[in-house]
């Protein structure tokens, strides 16, 4: 298991910036395997180029955030739902 892996808590500020609200309690459904999780418990990778949020059950990419030229590019296509 990877020591550097974080969880959704670590990106609470980023998510608030993107969604305008605290999303750590939001419930996500993985578009690949259907696993349901609180965002705070999702696996988060921050390699510096961007933030990649993955399903803990199947490792599929759920969300990607990349900051470029002062704007944040957001990709939520791996999610079946986020509420």
């Amino acid at each position: 298991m990877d020591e550097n892996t974080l969880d959704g808590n670590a990106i609470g500020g980023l998510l608030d910036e993107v969604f305008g609200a605290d999303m750590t309690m939001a419930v996500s459904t993985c578009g690949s395997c259907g696993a349901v999780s609180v965002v705070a418990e999702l696996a988060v990778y921050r390699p510096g180029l961007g933030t990649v949020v993955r399903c803990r059950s199947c490792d599929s990419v759920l969300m990607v955030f990349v900051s470029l030229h002062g704007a944040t590019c957001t990709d939520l296509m791996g999610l079946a739902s986020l509420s």
Partner: protein
Amino acid sequence: MAGTAVRGRLTWQTATVGRVTRETASAVTLSLSVPDWPGHRAGQHVDIRLTADDGYQAERAYSIASAPGEPLAITVERLDDGEVSPYLTEEARPGDQLEVRGPIGGYFVWEAETGGPLLLAAGGSGVVPLRAILRYRSLVGSSVPVRLLYSSRSWEDVIYSSELDMPEYGVEVIHTLTRSQPPKWHGYARRVDQKMLTEVAWPAADRPLAYVCGPTSFVESVAAGLVGLGYPAGKVKTERFGATGQ
């Protein structure tokens, strides 16, 4: 007494460093003065942003060490290959300015109404948000029983040691020192394992609530261990700090 975080978009605010308290050789508590601080809940964190004079910026998240109602404070542990923590723990002085965004997070928080008994498990600097929970519990006069299992490398690495040495009624603090122990140490002297959890954790039948915080490997191992003891996964809250050289 519980702080109510103002809902709505978080923004970066300028914070001025107040008191700097050295907790251990590598950990420092900074009190921060933020003009429009909305208050916070026990367990939340803030994002801190530093700006160099060439415009370079670095941002990190730090758990809030103070209870709701107390002045904002963070406790930072110095990472040897870090960029922000060496500055905060060795350079920052009263009057210095940095930026704060927060409070952040509604998941890893505890309010007295949530109840217990509480099992708090801390690996190294993971003790910070758990200490905020303990201070808050004391301030509101809660009688929820708490056990804090706190893993550190040595006694010198224990943050808040004198405060934790005088726990409130209903709070038990169980240390484990994984690398070295003082003479005549009778406590645990190894990494948290299933046997230790069995001895320390509330039985699942007590319907406890667990908060586990620290390096990722510590959190994963302890959370799995608690689930192995019968704790429902939904009753084990986790906050991973990544690799912290523990």
